[in-house]
């Protein structure tokens, strides 16, 4: 399967990946609308980790032996054996956050104010590059 790889030497910490992740999962067509709709604005599944000049964007790694899938008590976190994509079903999620605790990368995020369900990378875009990769201005994210 294709994966997203971060090239930390090229990440400039602009966080456009986060911004376009929000747009992609907002249901809106434009950034302006997506950000104006604060109530429904999703948490970015892609996060830039930064310490001075060192930075890189991090998303769910879609582990082969994904600990989050094993930890999920509601059957909301599943791994498609055909595509290898680990996905999260918001309707089934009960908000126990076991996955958050199990993820060794910090790739699953929660927003306490907005509700219990978690958000994580769903490798949006299908065969095309996910939104974060497509909008990285410095080719610091690659999808291959």
């Amino acid at each position, binding site marked *: 399967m294709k994966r997203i790889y971060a090239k930390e030497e090229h990440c*400039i*910490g602009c966080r*456009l990946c986060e*911004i376009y992740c929000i747009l992609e999962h907002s249901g809106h067509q434009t*950034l*302006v609308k997506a*950000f104006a709709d604060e109530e429904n604005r999703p948490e970015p599944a892609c996060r830039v980790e930064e310490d*001075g*000049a060192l930075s890189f964007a991090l998303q769910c790694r879609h582990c082969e032996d994904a600990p989050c899938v094993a930890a999920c008590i509601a059957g909301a976190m599943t791994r498609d054996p055909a595509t290898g994509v680990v996905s999260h079903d918001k309707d089934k999620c009960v908000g126990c956050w076991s996955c958050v605790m199990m993820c060794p990368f910090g790739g699953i995020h929660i927003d306490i104010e907005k509700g219990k369900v978690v958000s994580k990378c769903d490798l949006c875009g299908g065969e095309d590059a996910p939104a974060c990769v497509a909008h990285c201005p410095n*080719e610091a994210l690659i999808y291959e």
Partner: protein
Amino acid sequence: MPLSLIPAEFEIRRNPDLCIKCGVCTRQCSFSGQNINPDDGSISSDDNSCVGCQRCVTLCPTHALQVVQRPEQGRRHAIWTTATRAGIAKQAETGGMLLTGMGADKPFPVYWDRMFLNASQVTNPSIDPLREPMELRTYLGSKPNQVEFDEQGRPVTAMPPQLRLELPVMFSAMSFGSISLSTAMSMARAAAESGTYFNTGEGGLHASLRQYGANAIVQVASGRFGVTPDYLANSAAVEIKIGQGAKPGIGGHLPGEKVSAEVSATRMIPQGADAISPAPHHDIYSIEDLKQLIWALKESTNYTKPISVKIAAVHNIVPIASGAVRAGADIVAIDGIRGGTGAAPTMIRDNVGIPIEFALAAVDAQLRKEGIRHQASLVAAGGFRNSADIMKAIALGADAVYLGSSALVALGCHMCQKCYTGKCTWGIATQDPYLTKRLNPEIGVKRLKNLLRAWSLEMKEMLGGMGMNSIDSLRGNREMLRGIEMSAQELEILGVSPAGR
């Protein structure tokens, strides 16, 4: 000073309907012109800090930003312009020289724009570069006057070392230190992959660029930074830098802030120490001293590499260039007044030297008159903006040109002229690791190769239009140029007829 009298140069305009407060602009600005308030996430701009580099404008995902030059401020005055007064205010507050970067921004006449190229009509057919080979290949170096043969018909003439260029364009000298390693890497790789050369400037050759030595013209400048036996051996040619078009007659100063660990290792100077290049070479006080250095470098490279001498276009450029050729230079590079720099006193950049067009035309004519034109190749530098400028330079007599500013523009430079601050937001003229990351050499190489390819296509098209299929037939072919808006004397110096004649 309690109150600064320096007016803001730019106005940052933010369209509140479009701004999503994502903060990208604040993270991109290295001059504190865009700031996020940590308390409420609101964003504010500071016009006084803005340098007009357009980084925030370019990265803003909703195109909410504009950064525009402020109009003349206060009572309008044609002579005492806002910029003139701002310079005085700056100096009154600092007591220092006005510093700047890139090439002169005064509205100097660009003589390329006053010359037009020819094309074939009826009497000789133009040639279609899509159907016929169109040759841009150029060899730089000293050529013998003629080829001699022995009795068996074998040539006995030895060819001095040559640089082979697949197009008559090279990247100009820019030192690692003044520019980032990724900028240097981009040029080195683009040169290697396009069949041309890059120039180390006076900053030495970083270890990671050593592999591109076959495409490197290595400079020996007055500070001798980074010059080692390996540096000379691992090169295509060696260039003695006498002067630079942006700052003829003065040396260089790389502030200690830009002397990072890598720069320190490459230049062989202490980290954090200012790198001062003396104004003259202190072993060259006359032409015979230059000759000694040329031959010392030939000797130390075993006569396998052409030796270039780069000089700024100054008033007596003609005898200087002729002297350099007679002193043994295989290549003479001439840098005109519009040439760029990483740092120069503004008054020097904007007032010292002469335009490359006149320097090139006069030197080419004189070398031919003296019968020594074949002894050295001429490389013109100083503000080549497009392929037409290059074609016109070749028609005036250049063998090739050096690109500096246009290569940087291809890499993202927006000519804010703040190179000397070391805070280049485009990751070009900086050593700050947070900023240098912004130029991904993978992208840089692609952009530079594209530029060279695009200009090659245009040059071939123009060449074919003139009914030629080799750049050899344009070199010094001033019949292919006609001038407008020039005095008879200017036309005479350029050796160009007026349009209509």
